[in-house]
């Protein structure tokens, strides 16, 4: 009796029982079920939700692997054990086993905790509510480790994941019903509950906080400064990084957000496979550029002095804004969530534009915490149904006008 047959027997045995959703979740992970169509279309396209989500995960994998290398690289660079990259994207200083081993040691626990805790909550809700385990968390679970600082304590992450999945998603009815992006809900929870672990100059490089504690205890070690570029700019300091290093991603930041190059590759995968909306990505880009140009214009017009707290970020060229911070990652992987984003094609243009626009605005006007993209996306998540409402109203009005013209 083959595996297929024994699993089928087990499935029949569990049918209708409490644990059936949990079993089915594992079973369908291995085998596409033997479900057939009834009346309606007798044939179906091959795409299902698992394949859709899987494509997003695959687009994220380069960012994850890069994030591991970068975690090690930033750490060893800060401790002075290696020198800075010198040879473009394929610099040997960066692609070293030691970097990967260190980074994997730091990042993989985040992935394991994110999936472990999140899926446990998902399974629990599926069993309690008697519905199938839905695939939404597969992407959320991958996004979460990529958008947190590498040194975040695992217990904080666990609490945030539980909060995000329960309050961000399950209370609304699960995948497809939620209003806010669950991954960003998790990040927002962390940000507001544990701000010292989510901002400042001690969290973005692995070991920086530990080193600071050692210093405070009077040990004779060098301090590690791990400031993000946005953090430096918000304090009117210089960026301190080469342009191409920023584009390639050899900079401190949340685990997976730093490499604009790999994010662009992910975007290409998502757009080509038609999984994510190119409309949201493009309009997000346009929105960010427009806001950046406005700020650059303000600086050029001399309306703001270089002493102003906003000067550093306002004078940053508009195109540079696209490369620093989490903007690119947010627009490509998080704004395009179909459930929480605008659902009409016209609405997607408006929704994406405002995400880019507001991200840069928050970034410039919020010196305490210059990363604006996640707040911008959460804000637009809330407004997405309103945008859709007006787009749909346009269609309704057109229909009514057709009747009026006819009767006139």
């Amino acid at each position, binding site marked *: 009796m083959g595996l*297929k047959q024994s*699993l*089928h027997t087990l499935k029949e045995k569990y049918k209708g029982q409490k644990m059936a959703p949990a079993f089915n979740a594992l079973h*369908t*992970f*291995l*085998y*596409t*079920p*033997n*479900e*057939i*169509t*009834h*009346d*309606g*279309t*007798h*044939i*179906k*396209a*091959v*795409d*299902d*939700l*698992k*394949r*859709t989500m*899987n*494509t997003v995960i695959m687009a994220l994998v380069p960012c994850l692997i890069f994030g591991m290398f970068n975690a090690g690289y930033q750490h060893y660079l800060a401790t002075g054990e290696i020198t800075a990259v010198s040879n473009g994207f394929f610099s040997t200083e960066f692609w070293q086993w030691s970097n990967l081993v260190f980074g994997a040691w730091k990042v993989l626990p985040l992935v394991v905790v994110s999936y472990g805790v999140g899926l446990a909550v998902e399974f629990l809700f599926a069993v309690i509510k008697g519905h*199938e385990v*839905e*695939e*939404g968390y597969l992407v959320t679970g991958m996004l979460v480790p990529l958008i947190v600082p590498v040194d975040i304590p695992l217990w904080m992450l666990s609490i945030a994941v539980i909060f995000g999945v329960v309050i961000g998603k399950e209370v609304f*009815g*699960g*995948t*497809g*019903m939620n209003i806010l992006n669950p991954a960003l809900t998790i990040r927002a929870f962390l940000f507001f509950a544990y701000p010292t672990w989510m901002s400042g100059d001690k969290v973005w490089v692995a070991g920086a906080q530990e080193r600071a504690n050692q210093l405070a205890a009077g040990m004779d070690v060098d301090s590690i400064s791990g400031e993000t570029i946005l953090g430096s700019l918000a304090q009117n300091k210089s960026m301190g990084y080469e342009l191409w290093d920023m584009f390639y991603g050899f900079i401190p930041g949340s685990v997976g957000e730093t490499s604009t190059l790999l994010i662009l590759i992910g975007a290409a995968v998502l757009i*080509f*496979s*038609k*999984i994510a*909306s190119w*409309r949201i990505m493009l309009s997000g880009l346009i929105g960010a550029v427009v806001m950046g140009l406005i700020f650059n214009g303000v600086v050029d017009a001399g309306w703001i002095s270089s002493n102003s707290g906003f000067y550093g970020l306002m004078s940053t060229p508009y195109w540079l804004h696209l490369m620093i911070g989490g903007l690119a990652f947010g627009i490509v992987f998080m704004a395009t969530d*179909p*459930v929480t*984003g605008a*659902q*009409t*094609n016209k609405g*997607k243009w408006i929704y994406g534009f405002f995400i880019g626009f507001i991200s840069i605005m928050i970034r410039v006007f919020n010196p305490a915490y210059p990363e604006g993209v996640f707040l911008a996306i959460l804000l637009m998540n809330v407004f997405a149904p309103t945008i859709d409402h007006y787009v*749909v109203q346009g*269609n*309704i009005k*057109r*229909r*009514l006008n*057709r*009747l009026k013209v006819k009767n006139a």
Partner: protein
Amino acid sequence: MSRDIKIKKGLNINLKGEAEKTLSKAPRAATFAIRPKDFHLVTPKMVLKEGASFKAGEVLFYDKNNESVKFVAPVSGTLSSIERGAKRVINQLLIQADAEDTYVSHAPLDLSKASAEEIKAHLLATGCWPFITQRPYHLMAHPDHSPKAIFVSGYTTAPLAADLDFTLIGKESELQAALTALSKLTSGPVHVCVGRDSNSPLKGLKDCQVHSISGPHPAGNVGVQIAQIDPVNKGEVVWTVKAEDLVIIGELLLTGKFNAERIVALAGSCLAAPQYYAAIIGSEVGPLLSEAQLLEPNSRVISGDVLSGHTISQAGFLGYFDNTIMVIPEGDDYELFGWNKPVFDKISSTRALTFSWMQPKKKYDLNTNTNGEHRAFVVTGNYEEVFPLDIYPLQILKACMVQDLDQMEALGMYEVAPEDFALTEFVCVSKQPHQKIIREGLDLMYKEIG
């Protein structure tokens, strides 16, 4: 005013097992069945009792809600049984057919002189009325309505469906008679759509406006054509008649004989010799399937096309409105890692490791597997790519699911029929039953608003 319509959005689903364009006479079936379910929301009131004998064209039952609408026997024979289900609803009328048909003979109608009322009464009495469908609600037309226009689609785009350019050959006089009669029943024109490059027998007929249409499926759906030519507004009614049914109506008008024979395509990858047969409405499909050489015992037999037809068993019967019988493999098997491995042998509307976009002309052998489990709506924007109506498909489906009548009306429910949502159902990542949702929504509206 004839128009040239181009449809851009849509999806052609190329399947294996296209019916070869040769026509054979189907072997005379011994049993026939009429399923009142084919006439949506009609409550049958029997005229004949079990065991009664009748001629072809004799009234079997009428609609309880609309007593003037008669439903007639497609063949002469004996009513062997009336199969009832829960609450004594009639599921099926089984007919034991005579070896040869004798017909009820109606007086032919002189179309040049007949008034609209006479034509209407004639169609009602002779059993031709059920062939007329109305929108809104996609129901049998109500005899008291006066439609603003009547639409006939002479273009086939549904996968493997019977090609009207072939099945209508030589029926020009019947088609013309039916179109002339229909043109008197409406205050507006009768619109007929034919494929741009086709040599449809419908081209060049009079008493109608012939439009040409091109594009992928669902360009052949009459709903798409209505939306392009003269969309249904609130308070308006249009009628639609299938081109193949015009032949039956036309023959009745010309000869007085209700001849329920139509040309049916037997198609699908489970048949060794798919081809066209002249078969009578309601006839058992078993003999036809053996003629066309059924290959695979574990297969799905569908009366109608593969997107909107009904499942029947291998001992089932040809539906009242169907001109296609499809046989495709059942997909009741598991597939290892079916959700993440690259797929070359199935159709997809994305490119997520699915490669049907590389070979748009390739013919596929699809089975009835759902390729995934039912989920809540998640993905957006994919329905719009295959949906050529100026309607928001996701939003109208959700309005139907939450039974929001105002929103359903505002979003264009009067314009749609379930078959318009067949393609969105096909590409649906969440495997939602779109056509069922729309049908239930239409029924609800009909009940509440009427």
